């Protein structure tokens, strides 16, 4: 089990950190959330019952750790004058709900299919599909509006 966790970590580290960074809203917090999630998975590996896939179980822990990291994230203060070296994110993620964002990140960054996302977030595959479609529609509309 420990070897399987290590394999999964080493093989998918890029995707894991990408998803966790996107959810946590910060690269350092996202990377830390992945480390913390795997430490948690190592500690609790005997509680994995095998009812779903190991991959989904780990993703669930990673998503939860990233959510925790985002909640603990300190409040950033705006400078009195606008910063010249910063740039706003191009993608209007504020238009999406938390659930929509998580599904989008798991689908695009980790390339998980509907069943795997459903397993990781403990929702039905149908809900994953409908939520993802709604999120795509929202993003496309917003991006078209920006580019026109």
């Amino acid at each position, binding site marked *: 089990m420990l070897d399987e966790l290590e394999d999964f970590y080493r093989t998918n580290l890029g995707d894991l*950190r990408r998803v966790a960074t996107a959810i946590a809203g910060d690269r350092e917090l996202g990377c830390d959330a992945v480390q913390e999630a795997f430490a948690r998975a190592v500690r609790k590996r005997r509680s994995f019952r095998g009812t779903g896939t190991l991959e989904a179980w780990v993703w669930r822990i990673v998503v939860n750790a990233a959510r925790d990291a985002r909640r603990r994230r300190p409040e*950033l203060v705006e400078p009195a004058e606008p910063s010249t070296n910063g740039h706003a994110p191009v993608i209007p993620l504020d238009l999406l709900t938390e659930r929509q964002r998580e599904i*989008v990140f798991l689908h695009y960054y980790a390339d998980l299919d509907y069943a795997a996302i459903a397993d990781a977030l403990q929702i039905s595959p149908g809900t994953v599909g409908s939520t993802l479609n709604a999120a795509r529609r929202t993003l496309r509309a917003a991006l078209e509006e920006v580019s026109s």
Partner: protein
Amino acid sequence: MNELEALDEYVPLRMETPAWDDVLRRARTRRSPRFLVAVGVALAVFGGAPALAVVLLHDAKPGLPSGADRSNVAIMLEPHTGRIVLEVAPWKGHDGFCYFAFFNRSGCVPRSHQTVVMAPPMFGWTFDPRVVEATATTFGGKPVNLLVRQFRGRINATFFFEAKRFALLRNIVLRDRHGHVIVRLRK
């Protein structure tokens, strides 16, 4: 730009360096707060002295994070009591610092987080070297001066702090030595 391109830009794919040893170290050393509470309660209930349980729980509070360079720790004292309210050390392998504040808040901060404030109690830092003064306002409108301490060297940041632990403050303003506003928290 379509949503795929926008997502690619939002969190770009990088070459990542695995840190499996760090995972194992965290798994070995960190006990959950629930576990520590359970140990304390068990000791208190099953014959152990309640005071011992309290001591164990107290000892379990976090200190400086493991990423801190403990060979170079700076502290900030509360002037009236001499109590240590903050420990700060450079962050090993990163451009930033790690901190432990007396109210059990701790973490490591990259220099990209230019100015941060947390509350309650009011506590924060800035990497802007011009800041020498910090003020806030109570909800009743009374101005309050915050303690300010600059650490140079590898930490190279300025910290501000309100000693009254439960004071509810807003409108934090950081100023330079000429009184010019550098940062204003919009709250």
